[in-house]
């Protein structure tokens, strides 16, 4: 049984203009309890890779440049 990817609208968004992951920042990736954020290989900016969010906010609260926004996952909204 092959695997397919189901599309899902993710709750955490990153403003790439503000994100400084390309300068080596890893704060949001480090603090996320569910470990769902990663750095995009092409853009070197943070993004939400796994839709497994507790909308708990450390990524947004601890981001040094206010680049991260946490939204309520659509299913709960």
């Amino acid at each position: 049984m092959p695997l397919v990817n189901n599309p899902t609208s993710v709750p955490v968004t990153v403003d790439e203009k503000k994100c400084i992951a390309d300068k080596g920042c890893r704060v949001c990736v480090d603090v996320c309890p569910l470990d769902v954020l990663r750095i995009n290989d092409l853009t070197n900016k943070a993004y939400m890779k796994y839709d497994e969010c507790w909308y708990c906010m450390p990524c947004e609260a601890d981001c040094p440049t206010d680049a991260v926004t946490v939204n309520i996952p659509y299913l709960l909204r």
Partner: protein
Amino acid sequence: MDEINEGLSEVECDILVIGGGTAGPMAAYKARKKNPDAKVILLEKANVKRSGAISMGMDGLNNAVIPGHSTPEQYTKEITIANDGICDQAAVYKYAQNCYSIIEELDKFGIRFQKDENGEFDVKKVHHIGTYVLPMPNGDTVKKALYRQLRRARVLISNRFMATRLLTGKTGRIAGAISVNTRTGEFLVIKAKAVIMCTGAAGRLGLPTSGYLFGTYENPTNSGEGYTMAYHAGAKLANLECFQINPLIKDYNGPACAYVAGPLGGYTANANNERFIECDYWSGQMMQEFHNELVSGKGPVFLKLNHLHKDTADHIEEILHTVERPSRGLFHEGRNTKYSDKMIEMHISEIGFCSGHSASGVFVDDNALTTIPGLYAAGDMASVPHNYMLGAFTNGAIAGEHAVDYINDLDFDDFDQEEIVREKERVLAPTKREDGIPPNQIEFKIRRLVNDYLQPPKVTKKYELCQDRLAEIREDMEQNMVVRDSHELMRATETSSILDCADMAAFASLYRKESRWGLYHNRIDYPERDDDNWKCHVLLSKKDGNMVCEKRDIQPYIIPIAEEEKDMYDKQRVAVEA
């Protein structure tokens, strides 16, 4: 990141603390303070800076026993009654005697507690009998303050390592733990003379009504590894049938929250704007009335603040939207709900294990020791009832200090090296398959069945059906689960904990043939409380590879409970006026 590397390394320490949320940091800190020569490792699945139930802080202490406001005797009595008499009082009493010194210590860490105009702690009444609720005006700083202390005490922190199994030694003592890195799949074996488990609740057991796997009441990182590891190591687990079920804001699935809103005049109401429960303190008896109202024509149930002065309602809103679950404000914004305007719809949470609110936990004594020598448990996963955040801190401290004495002159216990080989094989099995079922689908199915069959009221036939279905899923999990990277490997390992916890929830519930703790263990086939046969603990454990339950006598009470007091928590419903 996330590629699977099969490396294996081994380290040694005196004391291993598993879980860096609330109890864990305090245990590690206290152990180092008491013996600065002890090598203490704090292992954390996420990152200690922001892990656990209080990753964004907490709005207050729910169970502070403060001289001048309440006494350890009174608190012990209250919790014994709230937990329907099933309580080894020694641990509760010891907590109540020690928690004030922990408050003073937290205060020194920079965590402030609310004081009145006379400079006294501003304690609020929420419980039936006593006064124990203390607001924390800068409660959002808890984790930062703890982290600072851990660094200062030079605790060795290992983030992103998930413990999967405990190691027991040849003499029956604890010998360490096996863990796997959640980003590389590398194994780390930690040999230790004592192990303190602080892995939190089993919060990913039921499925939230939203259907979103991670929209749980508990931090979903708390997927029950502590319960599962204790079980497989042969420790006993107490009263797992006393589920955690909480009254929450519907869909958002966060606390409403009685401890903040109650003292300021907020309460739980039905659709007719009527108050129907006397006391909003979270107990099984209260949850039973909540459930009764939901299924009656008077439901649903609401948090009512719109009768208060706008300033008061706005003040409550401000607290609730800045600490513990700060995205609550965003949720209400999206729904256009202001606390001062209209009532907020509430609902019943998914089930879980969590002694912090109920009583389901790994069985411990008043030193936080489990039934395995050298293995401790503290916080939401240990069996001290209605323990909350301050209980996690206090019992974590008790465990850390006791462990320092325990390891004195003790050497490592030898263990069977084959255990590591077997565990590595078990954990990595889903990485060896090209094809199969991903962990998220298996997890969804387990948790959907938990909702269908295990959510109280409990029906024997439904429980038996659930056991059959879970056995089928276990076969799928063991034969067909497939993962593609180390992140999914973490989820797969969690899925196996969730399945073990679901099995334990069903087994323990079927064993106790009575109803107790209100909704938490409401068995339709045995509707009455039966003190003659069941005023005892139920201990679950693994014997010769099989799940078994036994009765355990309650320790004689230290604080006697008078006949007229013992049912005080049963009188929850607001009396109908003649």
